[in-house]
């Protein structure tokens, strides 16, 4: 069987110190991205549990596949969910959601929860798009810019390079720093061009680590251009799957001259920021407009 070098960890996690039985409002957020899907559960507006999976071929199935194992893992019944908010690329196709909210607003709110009120700039490096977002002290979006026209600067581009060079995607960040000479420039405009240039570099005798360094640098340069359009204010935070790749994030920090902050609770995964924001929207909606639990009575996922 061919090894899948692009594969990353799919996992369920919960905060063992919290008890869903004592919660007044249980809200769920589901972020259907182009590459990964996340489900998050909040108890009274506090992060409780999350699940991250690879997005399948259709959004309704992916939404179910993200939420159902998480409900089983936490022992929460579907009919006890007070509010379900969907977000992300596939948000309009989640059949069991109570409301859809854009991923821009959800990332703003989720990142605000993870970092705190001092957060001002978010860079979300998603599977097939990239977003630069400014937020106020409450996590409300004040300025945003999204680029989803091409895969340059996205997780999909990184997966393509992982497969091409047969390097596990989780090792790319560290390996991109194991080089003796500075990274050579490579196309940051198009993944197809970058792929061709990467192959040419391999054939010219460059080591895999040198090629990876060039690709990470190209990706960092690409998103830095995006950030330059709206400006970067401290605190600065990176969300999305690429936030786990230090080969890209540290080069972005170098370009900007600003260090990205980490979540105040190290257990929080920046990849789940969108789903967390959706669950937090769900909590607010359930508090203000009432629970939707009755509409799920007797139903299962």
């Amino acid at each position, binding site marked *: 069987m061919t090894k899948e070098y692009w594969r990353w960890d799919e996992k369920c996690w919960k905060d063992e110190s919290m008890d869903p039985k004592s919660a007044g409002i249980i809200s769920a957020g589901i972020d259907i991205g182009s590459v990964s899907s996340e489900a998050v559960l909040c108890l009274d507006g506090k992060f409780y549990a999350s699940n991250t999976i690879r997005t399948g071929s259709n959004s309704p199935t992916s939404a179910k596949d993200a939420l159902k194992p998480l409900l089983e893992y936490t022992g929460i019944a579907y009919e006890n969910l007070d509010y379900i908010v969907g977000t992300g690329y596939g948000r309009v196709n989640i059949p069991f959601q109570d409301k859809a909210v854009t991923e821009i607003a959800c990332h703003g709110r989720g990142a605000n929860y993870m970092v705190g009120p001092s957060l001002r700039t978010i860079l979300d490096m998603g599977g097939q798009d990239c977003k630069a977002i400014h937020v106020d002290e409450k996590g409300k979006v004040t300025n945003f*810019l*999204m680029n989803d026209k091409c895969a340059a600067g996205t997780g999909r581009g990184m997966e393509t390079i992982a497969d091409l060079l047969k390097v596990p995607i989780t090792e790319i960040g560290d390996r991109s720093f194991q080089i003796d000479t500075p990274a050579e420039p490579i196309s940051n405009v198009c993944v197809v061009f970058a792929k061709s240039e990467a192959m040419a570099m391999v054939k010219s005798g460059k080591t895999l680590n040198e090629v990876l360094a060039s690709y990470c640098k190209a990706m960092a340069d690409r998103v830095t251009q995006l950030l330059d359009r709206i400006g970067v204010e401290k605190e600065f935070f990176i969300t999305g799957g690429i936030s786990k790749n230090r080969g890209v994030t540290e080069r972005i920090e170098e370009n900007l001259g600003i260090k990205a902050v980490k979540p105040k609770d190290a257990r929080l995964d920046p990849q789940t920021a969108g789903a967390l924001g959706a669950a937090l929207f769900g909590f607010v909606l359930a508090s203000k407009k009432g629970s939707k639990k009755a509409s799920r009575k007797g139903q299962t996922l």
Partner: protein
Amino acid sequence: MIANYGYMDGSGEYYITIDTDKCAECEGKMCIAACPKGLFVPIEDDYGEDVVEIDSGKVKELKYQCMDCKPTEKPPLPCISACTPGALKHSW
């Protein structure tokens, strides 16, 4: 909120920027009728404001959608002229 719709590609940056705080105060939303390509669509945003956004099916083609209105000899653009609160900007 400053909402930037558009993209950056090998040929340049093509963004239409909407200041939604100004847009929400406009009752007429005359930009919708003024755009010959129907780029502007009314929505209620995530914070409950009635604003316009760029049609998601056309946002990746802005360079081409706006081409007919762009010759330099006939400024200003119809959308910019119609936007009485001054909420719209083009980046190119």
